[in-house]
Each structure stands twice: as structure tokens, then as C-alpha cells.
């Protein structure tokens, strides 16, 4: 019965007929959508840039992937090799452009899998009978207790390293977290009265999950998706650094850092550039997520 304290905006007026509003509401909503924060736009640009690199990178690459283009290993910046050359004298710009496909594509694929499966299962657990919820929750509790790196190491040791395998491992490692988050969001929403109304109307569980619950948790879930994407980039880069990720001659950004780690003492661009690329992607994604989350708070009109 305790109503929460009203925000300080004046009450939207208690008259029954107010004709002026719809246009204004529409306009303000569009304005709100269009008005992304400066950091949000920056994040959007950085992530968009990385995605473009993943799609068009191999076409733009000036040299072939394995071509030994420079006579010097760890060559510095030059017109021929803007990002320098690696430890074998291969053009670094080409390698970063080609590697984008592995890092961004693989990580994106794994993040979509992890968040998609995790969210669906979380919703299923929240709307189903208690024993289903219990069984699923305990199963994912068990999974979540295995550190993702160790899981990856064991799986690679058993099945070998390949692109589908890496995607699977990253997805499996991050499904339990996505499940936990979406389940707890959905469980809170399930007790709200509009869900009770839908249940009393006789709606099936699938409809309730899809139409009543999912739209109201999509913003936090998207924010979680972004976080998971970043974690997966870091996991894959870490695996590549250990030599267990994408196998030569292909290389994602993580492998590029590892290959060229010897050039660190010479301040070679070959080690710097892929690191900057990883940082660009993760920082951009985080900025984008933050602004999405802030939008979620405003756009939901009272639904926190």
C-alpha cells in the first residue's frame, strides 16, 4: 500500500481528456532515442568500426596473410607498413585486418550463443514449475563453479583447437551467467500484476515469457550481452596468448600479441597495434553498454 514517493515532475494532469499530448510524447520519445550521450556515440562508432573491419578487413588488407613483406623483423612505422612488421617481417596492418574476423566474429558468435541460450533458459526456469526451476538452477550453479579458463583448457586438451570448438567453449563458459541474470530478472517480473493478469486471462507460459516478460528485461539483458562479449574477447585473446586459440598461420588479435611479445623490449608496433585493437573493441563495447543501460532507465517510464 505504500506508494513510492512520486518523482518531482508534476503529475501528468488528472483530467480525463487531454488531446495535446500524443504528438508531444512522440516527439520527446524520438528525441530521447536520438539523444545518445557523447560517450555512447563514441562507443557506437568504435564498435561499428571493429565490425566493419571484421567484414571488409580481408579485402582491404594490402598484403597476403602469410606474405613476408618486409626484410626487417619488428620493423617500425613506415608508409609501406603503417603498423610495422611482425617478428617474421609480415605486414602488421594486414594481419590486424585479417585477424579482426576471428576476434570479432568468433567472440560475437559465442556471445550471441551464450546470451541467447542463457536468456531463453532463464525465462523457461522463471515461468516453469518450481522443480524445473530448481533442477536448472542447480545444474548451472555446478557449471558456474568451473573457472572458464580451466574449462577451456580441458576442452581443448580433449578435443583440440578449432574455430567451432572455441565458439562452443566460450558459449558454454558464459551461458550460466546469462542464465542467472535473466532468471532473476524474470522472476521479479513474474510477480508483477500485469503478468498475473495475463495468467488469469489463461495465456500460455510461452506467451507470457515472450510478450509480457521479455520486453521488460531486454535492456538489462542487452547490457549483460555486451559485458559477456567483452569477457569472451578477453577469454579468446587469453587462450590465443597461451597458444591454444586460433592456430597459425591464421591469427586473431590475441595471437598477434603473443607472437610478437618478443618485440616488447624494442617498443615494436607489432605488439602495440593488436593490443590497441583489443582495447578499442572492449572500451567501445563498454561505452555503448553504459549508454544503453542509461537509456533503459529513462525509456522504460518508471520500470527500473
Amino acid at each position, binding site marked *: 500500500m505504500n506508494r*513510492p514517493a512520486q518523482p518531482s515532475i508534476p503529475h*501528468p494532469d488528472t483530467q480525463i481528456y487531454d488531446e495535446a499530448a500524443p504528438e508531444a510524447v512522440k516527439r520527446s520519445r524520438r528525441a530521447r532515442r536520438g539523444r545518445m550521450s557523447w560517450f555512447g556515440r563514441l562507443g557506437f562508432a568504435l564498435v561499428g568500426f571493429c565490425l566493419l573491419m571484421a567484414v571488409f578487413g580481408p579485402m582491404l588488407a594490402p598484403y597476403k596473410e602469410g606474405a613476408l613483406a618486409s626484410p626487417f623483423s619488428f620493423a617500425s612505422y613506415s608508409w609501406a607498413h603503417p603498423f610495422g612488421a611482425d617478428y617474421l617481417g609480415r605486414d602488421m596492418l594486414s594481419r590486424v585486418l585479417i585477424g579482426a574476423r576471428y576476434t570479432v566474429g568468433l567472440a560475437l558468435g559465442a556471445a550471441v550463443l551464450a546470451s541467447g541460450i542463457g536468456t531463453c533458459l532463464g525465462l523457461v526456469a522463471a515461468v516453469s514449475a518450481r522443480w524445473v526451476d530448481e533442477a536448472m538452477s542447480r545444474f548451472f550453479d555446478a557449471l558456474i563453479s568451473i573457472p572458464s579458463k580451466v574449462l577451456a583448457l580441458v576442452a581443448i586438451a580433449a578435443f583440440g583447437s578449432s574455430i567451432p570448438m572455441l565458439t562452443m567453449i566460450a558459449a558454454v563458459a558464459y551461458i550460466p551467467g546469462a542464465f542467472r541474470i535473466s532468471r532473476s530478472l524474470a522472476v521479479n517480473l513474474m510477480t*508483477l500484476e*500485469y503478468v498475473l*493478469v495475463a495468467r*488469469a486471462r489463461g*495465456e500460455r507460459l510461452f506467451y507470457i515469457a515472450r510478450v509480457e516478460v521479455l520486453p521488460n528485461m531486454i535492456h538489462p539483458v542487452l547490457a549483460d550481452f555486451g559485458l559477456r562479449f567483452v569477457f569472451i574477447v578477453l577469454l579468446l585473446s587469453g587462450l590465443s596468448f597461451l597458444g591454444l586459440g586460433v592456430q597459425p598461420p591464421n591469427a586473431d588479435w590475441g595471437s598477434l600479441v603473443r607472437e610478437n611479445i618478443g618485440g616488447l623490449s624494442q617498443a615494436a608496433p607489432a605488439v602495440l597495434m593488436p593490443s590497441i585493437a583489443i582495447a578499442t573493441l572492449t572500451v567501445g563495447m563498454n561505452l555503448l553498454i553504459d549508454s544503453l543501460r542509461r537509456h533503459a532507465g529513462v525509456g*522504460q517510464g*518508471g520500470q527500473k
Partner: protein
Amino acid sequence: MSDVMIEVKGLRIIAGNASEGTTEIVKGVDFTVKKGEVLALIGESGSGKTTIALSLLGYTRHGCTFAGGSVRVGETDVLSLDDAGRRALRARTVAYVAQSAAAGFNPARTLMDQVIEPALLHRLMTREAARATAVELFRALALPAPDSIGDRYPHQVSGGQLQRVMAAMALITGPAVVVFDEPTTALDVTTQIEVLVAFKKAIRELGTTAVYVSHDLAVVAQIADRIVVLNGGTVRENGTTGQVLDMPADDYTRQLLAATRRSEPEPAIADTDSLPPLLEVRNLNAGYGRIGANGVPAVCVLDNVNLRIARGSALGVIGESGSGKTTLARVVAGLVDRARGEVLLDGKPLPAKLSARTPDQYRRVQIVFQNADTALNPSHTIADILARPMNFYHGLRGAAAQKRMFELLDLVKLPASIARRQPGGLSGGQKQRVNLARALAADPALILCDEVTSALDTVVGAAILDLLVELRRELGVSYMFISHDISTVRALCDDVMVLYAGQCVEAGQRDVLAAPPHHPYTGLLVDSVPALRPGWLDSRRALTGTALPSMGPASDSTELCSFRARCPVRVDGKCNVTPPSVRKLPSGAVILCHHSATELELVEKTNPVTA
């Protein structure tokens, strides 16, 4: 003039900032309060009453700024104070009692620690002196066990007690002015009276000047010397309590008064022919937790409830919070399982489990919840919300659905343009209308209304009630109308049922509420509705002060009268030993009590307020 305590002149407060445009919330308000007087600020939400009350503390809510005018409290010009000055003002001169005491207390600290905190924070008293003062205040505010209640935590006292503890916290520094911001709005009628009595006594004993913010004229009539009626940030009327209530000079005041004094409609002619009643509930037991060997759940919320709703009639279910009225609606809707008993719709049993019901059974029973904010999905448009039941039950799509939707919006008196908007952009009254329209979209036979007007202002709530009456006349739907407010039930319903702790203590026609004899609990409820005249509270006070008759330990029968712990006419050796019998009163009401009609009438006639 030294006896003017508060002087507000031409106060203007705006919201927003220059770049995004501003809205004037308070548009030039003037009033004065003399020392020791109680002034009431009354108006609906959005009228600026809380904003004005907060300005006495030199505070504006986030995003608001003072645009002009002056506020003087005692000798201080509040608006010109700097931070340190405002701190001093709030320490000694002005104190604030908020609406929601539950949200105002830190659940991790004892009440005493929090009550004496203002005194210690501003270094006005030693800890021992502050504790002694607090105990005095607890006593003045009629709190039980004043010496030890301070050691409890906020969740260990009731809502009404917490509100009084909050008042003690405000009064501990001995402020000259106390601002009460809707302190009883969230409380039950019976609790509200206790709190009001305590406040009034404390204000009078301490000689404090008070500003009491409320939207309820009847409450204000009891406690205030003067009333300021606000609407849209302007003063509509400013006068003594008697003048405002008896000779209102302003149209808006008259509108408010009319919404409070509700007329009772003609009882609808219910079909009393041989058809089975629309809804019949027999010997219903329901609750939460594991169901024990004897078929009773661990926490029993409803105990042996029987009711009938005839086609086209309305049943009012009255009771305070925790009486099980919401659970009753949820059991009928199938959202809560029942432990025992049966529910019949049109004479046919209604399955307890939702999944076992037929689509037609779903359609015929619709539920409308109290809080329209959470009952409408914030991410859907109104059109989506209304289209779903039409599509689900009647298979309406496209143009036919569109047409039906406009009919529905017209029926609940909303403009068609609202269909494209989302619930976040609507006012409370509009949301509640959409909520009703969604229930009507199913073309139901029975609508379960769970406190549909409780969260709304008087005027808006009255409009919703009128709408319900009209819909019933036009569409012939039946209602189960759940409320804690007797006057709204009387305005809408043909039959009433009084629930106390899950037992139906009285059931009968609407008129049984009008005159005694009642069941003692119904009597208490009827007496607790503030009458719209000054002095009502004082004439009533003698009653609440009297101690209850003493009673020995209860026998272990589970069917004893649930009201015996609070009953003013309980009988030792009877109420605590044997279950009460069902009696029929001359008015036609059926009650559950040991007393006969004549005994009850005698008891209630001696009470000067009833009748």
C-alpha cells in the same frame, strides 16, 4: 505581529531549467499560520501541496527552484538562508513527518537510535536526556510499552505505530513547526484513527504549530483549525475549517466535498429467479505454505468463506489489510490454490488450477488490480494491451479489433488518441480506466475489482466509481468489489461482506452498514470512517481510550472468533472457549458472534457516534 508563526507570501516554485523549458508548480501562494494553529493544505496529487510544505523547510525537490516570494518561519526568512542556516532551521524550528514511515526508517537500526538521532546530530541533548524525552514522546503518542518500544526494529512494529514513532522523531528537538505530509494516507481506517488521535493529542500538549498535508477532507476536518484548498499550484480557498466545510466559497472546494460525500445509487434489480447465482463460493479455505494433514495450509488466510453473487449485482468485500480480501479475489481468479471448498460459476464448478479451466471460464472472470502502475505492461502501447484479450478470446483482428478498441476507449471515457501511447505517459486515473477497458475487452460476466480506487485521489477515484456504476447499468456485469473504504463500497454495491482475519464476520445487504446492530468489528470499521465535520474525532475519543474487557487464555479450538483479541464487547469464558454461532440480525445480515442482536444494539446505541 508576534503570534504569526508562518508567513508565506507570493511563493512561486518552478520545475525544470531554462534550456528545456520550465513549468510553474506553485503559482504565487499566500497564507499565514498563527502560533499553535494547525493548518491543512489540501488538494489532489499535482496540486503542489507537498512542494509548498517542503518549502517551509527551505527545501525543494530535485529539479525545482524557488522563483519568487518569501517564506518566514518565526523570525527567519527561510528562502534567504545559506546551507548552515537551513541546517539550524531544520534542527530546532521546523520538522517533517513523511508519508511512508516504512521507507523512512533504516531497517538495520533500533527505533530509539533513529528517534534520538536528530537531537544528537545537532548536539541539542545528551544521549540520556534524549532517550528520556523520546520515552515521554512515545507515551504522549500513545505507543504501547513506551519504555521498551525503542529497543525494537522498524519491522517489529505495525505501520500505524511506525508512523507515530516517526512523529516522535520529528518532535524530539521540540520544533516550533511540524510539517505532516499525508501521514495517514497509507494506513487502514481503524489504524488511521489511532494515529490521528495521537497526533492531535501531541500537537495540543506540546503547543506545536503544524502544517498538515492531505487529500482527505474528512481527516483534515478532525485535526485542522484552518484549511487551504490548493489546485494546480494556486490557492482556491483559505478559511477556517467550519467555513470551508459548511460554506465553501469556491467551485473546486465544492467538487472535493461532493466527491467525499457520496450519494448512494439505487440498488440494481438483481435477477432473483431460479437461475443459479453467477458466482458461488462454498466453505472456502485457502492460504499459503504446505497443506497439512487436516487439509488446512500452514498459513491460513481464508477460513470457511461463503458468498454468492447474483447476475448483474455487486458484492462489496470490506476488511483491513491482512484480512484476506485480495487472496479471495485471487482464489476466484485461479491465481492462488484453494485448500478446501468449492467455487461455482453459473452453478458449474470452477477448477482450482488455472490450467484446468476452459477458455470460456477464463473469459467470464476478469480481475482488475489496485495498482494500475504495475498492472499495465510498461513496454506495450495501450492498443497492444487492449488488442490482446480481444484476439485471445474473440479472435478479433485488424479493422474489427480497431473498431472494438475505440468502442472500449469510448466506454471508459478515454480519447481514442491514447491508443498509441504507453502506460508511462498516462495519469493514475487514465491508467485505471485502461485497466478496466482491458477487463471489459474480454466481455466478462464478473469483474474482480481489487481496491481499484485506493491509490487514486478523491476526485479521480469518485470518477472511476461513477464509471463502474455506469458500466454495470449498461453492460450488466457483476462485480466483486474489494475495498477497505466503507463509503466506496456503499456507493457501488448491493451486498456487503466484512472479512476479518480470513473469517466472514458479517454478510448482508448494503443497508446493514447504515445502522446498528452490527458485528462488533463492522461497528469498529463504521465508526472509524471520519465524518466530514469538525469535532467528530473528539467525540469518538472516549471510546478508543477504554480498555478491553479482560479475557483468560484461549482454548485450542481453531474456530474461535478471530476478532476476540480486539473486540470491545468480548466475554471471558465464551469468546475464548467456544466458536461463535451464526446469527441473523433483524436487518437481514448474518453475523458470526456470541452476542444476540438486542445485546449488540444496546452496546452500539450507547456509542454516541454511530447511527
